[in-house]
């Protein structure tokens, strides 16, 4: 069963004080996320990632379209018991301590009273906040608030977790911990849908990614497939302090780095290139096919499509 099935979900806002005009925040979005999948929703700031999450959470209402979450209509109140949500740059009731906040959210999520306090303590330990559990949140740093946010999102043991920029505001070790946490969630069989613009996080964690830009889903793909695609080029690294002339004639893009040369050239020139190295008695270090990176895929998807560029030139609101 699909964990999330988004069916042409669309959102536009009215802008302008006097003469209202529509501003499209999300073009009709169609996307399916399978159960147990870790899905990364990539895009620059203002691309429509948060709007999509808010629509799925019922915080804003769609202009058109619908979505099904865990087999239920997204408006069905039963959905909320099965999902967890971490908003971007979360802000919590700062008159409460972390323990009180989690207890309150546990109450709202319907966690039974007899197991609530043990679960709260477990979550505090899981995000490394046991020592600060009794401190009011107004005294917490941004990184600590992010940890509280993660704890509240998984407190009630949801099947599906939505995380909006979960690594934002965290230092490198904090980011590492969040990555580990998402990995644990995956191991527990949970579905994770998270938005980010940090590609290395997505590459390390996601089964699939979707790229959204200007409110439009530009592409969806499996991370393993995207990063295993060959570009029809090879990269040769060998010891030398000069670039052999023959290699340049083969169309290699070469550069010297210390006592090594790094050259990228068409795959069909592989034998010829090796012959040159042999004839010049140069020691080969490595020869690998050049594969696509997630970054290349991302950048490629951000390029305006012809139809969209024409639409934008005509002044269609985005």
């Amino acid at each position, binding site marked *: 069963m699909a964990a999330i099935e988004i069916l042409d979900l669309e959102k536009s*806002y009215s802008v302008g004080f006097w003469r209202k005009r529509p501003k499209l925040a999300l073009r009709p979005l169609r996307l399916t996320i399978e159960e147990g999948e870790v899905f990364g929703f990539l895009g620059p700031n203002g691309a429509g990632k948060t709007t999509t999450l*808010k629509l799925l*959470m*019922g*915080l*804003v*209402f769609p202009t058109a379209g619908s979505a099904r979450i865990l087999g239920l209509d997204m408006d069905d*109140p*039963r959905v*909320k*018991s099965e*999902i*967890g*949500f971490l*908003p971007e740059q*979360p*802000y*919590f*009731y700062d*008159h*409460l301590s972390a323990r009180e906040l989690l207890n*309150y*959210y546990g*109450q*709202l*999520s*319907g966690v039974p009273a007899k197991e609530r306090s043990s679960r709260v303590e477990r979550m505090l330990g899981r995000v490394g906040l046991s020592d600060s559990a009794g401190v009011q949140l107004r005294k917490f740093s941004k990184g600590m608030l992010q940890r509280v*946010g993660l704890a*509240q999102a998984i407190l*009630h043991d949801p099947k599906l977790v*939505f995380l909006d920029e979960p690594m934002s505001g965290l230092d490198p070790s904090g980011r590492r911990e969040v990555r580990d946490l998402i990995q644990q969630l995956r191991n527990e069989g949970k579905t994770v849908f998270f938005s980010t613009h940090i590609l290395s996080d997505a590459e390390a964690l996601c089964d699939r990614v979707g790229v959204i830009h200007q409110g439009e889903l530009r592409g969806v793909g499996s991370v393993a497939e995207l990063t295993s695609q060959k570009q029809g080029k090879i990269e040769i690294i060998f010891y030398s302090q000069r670039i052999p002339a023959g290699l340049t004639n083969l169309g290699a893009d070469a550069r010297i780095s210390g006592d090594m040369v790094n050259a990228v050239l068409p795959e069909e020139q592989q034998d010829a290139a090796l012959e040159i190295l042999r004839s010049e008695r140069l020691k080969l270090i490595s020869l690998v096919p050049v594969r696509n990176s997630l970054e290349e895929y991302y950048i490629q998807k951000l390029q305006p499509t012809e139809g969209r560029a024409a639409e934008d030139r005509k002044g269609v609101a985005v």
Partner: protein
Amino acid sequence: MNSRIGFVAFNTFREAVRDRVLYNLIAFALMLSGAAILVGEISIDIERLVVVNLGLTAVSLFGVVIAIFIGIGLVSKEIDKRTLYTVLSRPVRRWEFVVGKFFGLTGTLVVNTFFMALGVFLALLYVAHRFQNMDFWVLVALYFIVLQFFIVCALALFFSTFSTPLMSAVFTFALFVIGSLAEDLRGFARVTQGVAGWIATGIAYVVPNFSALNIIGAVAHGDPVAGRLILYSTIYALLYSTIAISGAVLIFQHRNLK
């Protein structure tokens, strides 16, 4: 009561207490004890009248100020600070959140009024040295004040669902002032003819009739309060609050949280 409403209400109450809202009781206690000592020195036979008048008016004003200044931020502050996101992404319906907020604030005011009422009765004991039968009506006047708080809270909450805190404060306070003059407005409507008369009548019946809920003067003079008035006032306040809360729910139910 639905348990989620109770949880939201308790959190609202706890927030008010931790934000030191109940500190107003210190100012109230100082003011009332000062006034009681002062009237004890300078007035003859009207000490009770002065203490009841002053005490109940202070209870009403302190409460209205708290109701407005907390009420106007109940929803809008949660939207601005985005604390709502993690609440509404749980199995909490929007109407439950609004109703919970209302009960949280009215609960805060009831507790606040309870302590202020204790102060009023202590001041009465200080000036009269004993309680009298007619002091019972002071309790009824306090009940009427609480009914006023219900309406003010509901109105503040209503405006809070679609307006900025500043505008909500202006609207709620304006309605409180106009409502306190509702009887005069109704009298004016009765003697006005034509379109102006219709408009005045419309306004007179739409604005909350706070003047009917103000029995401080009568109680200060020891006049009894008819049971029928208590019943009608209760029904009126509950009905008006329910309508305002329903309006708040209706608006909030369809609001996009940007």
